[in-house]
């Protein structure tokens, strides 16, 4: 019974609050275009302080990121959002990979189906040399 109660408590427990390091590698410093964890720019310092404040206020990771987007625009995210125009950033590589696979598949199919060159009669001198070589090999 105790085990069951403990299990339910774990399942119902609120998710662990995010940490600064959970967020700073997913957010870009807008003046230097690198993630916050790699930047010492003044605005990066302020953004880190802001993230700490929001964590202390109980915001989730997604809420903090949404508040940063509200203030700096979508360019503040290190990874583009999976909607709207930014979806292209996700779809293009996938589309490229599918296209490349299709081209490779088509080429492989073509090569596998290509007619083999039919062996014609050998030229007399080549046939004679071949016979000599074989005879020497057998002998």
């Amino acid at each position, binding site marked *: 019974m105790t085990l069951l109660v403990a299990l339910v408590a774990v399942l119902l427990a609120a998710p662990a609050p995010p940490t600064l390091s959970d967020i700073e590698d997913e957010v870009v410093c*807008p*003046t230097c275009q690198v993630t916050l964890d790699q930047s010492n720019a*003044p*605005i990066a*310092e*302020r*953004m880190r302080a*802001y993230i700490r404040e929001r964590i202390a206020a109980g915001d989730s990771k997604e809420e903090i990121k949404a508040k940063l987007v509200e*203030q*700096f*625009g979508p*360019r503040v995210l290190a990874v583009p959002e999976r909607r709207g125009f930014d979806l292209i950033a996700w779809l293009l590589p996938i589309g490229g990979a599918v296209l490349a696979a299709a*081209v490779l598949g*088509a*080429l492989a199919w*073509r090569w596998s189906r*290509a007619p083999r060159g039919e062996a014609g009669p050998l030229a007399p001198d080549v046939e004679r040399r071949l016979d000599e070589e074989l005879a020497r090999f057998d002998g």
Partner: protein
Amino acid sequence: MTGARLKVGAQALAVGLVVALLALLVWKLVHDEGSGIPSALARGEQPPAPAFTLPRLDREGTLSLADLRGQAVVINFWASWCAPCKEEAPVLEAAWREHRDEGLVVLGVDFNDLRSDALAFMREVGMTYPVVYDRDGELVAKYGATGVPETFFVDRRGRLVGKRIAGAVNARDEFRRDFEEGLRLALGS
């Protein structure tokens, strides 16, 4: 025959991709209004000031350049974390107070900033002129601004005049002269 068709198809696809990329490049160049402004000002030209509408930071609502038609405008890009922005703020505030009755508007454009920091900065330096927030860097791109602080002057006919000041307007004598000259040209006095 299939192979030949495949080859032609692949070539058409490659040419199509190159054409699409070129079209994208041309579109970007055509729509990148601001890229030529700093160089045009450096050549002494007076290009039309790019239009904009941005949310205000000092109060609710938005502000457009069109709302300021007929007035001289000093456009000053700033951010709260920028030390030179703090140094020049009193000079801009003094210009606004001195010339507002003549039709001068100093317009602050906050960029790359946390809203709460920007509001605290405005209170700290006693900024009373209108301020907009350029969240997406739209105005920065249109004017070809390269950082903060940076200042442009717009005359009553909506043309950019004088010199672009890339740095605090009171950072050195040259900038102080450019600032006074920019004010004079913008006001048409």
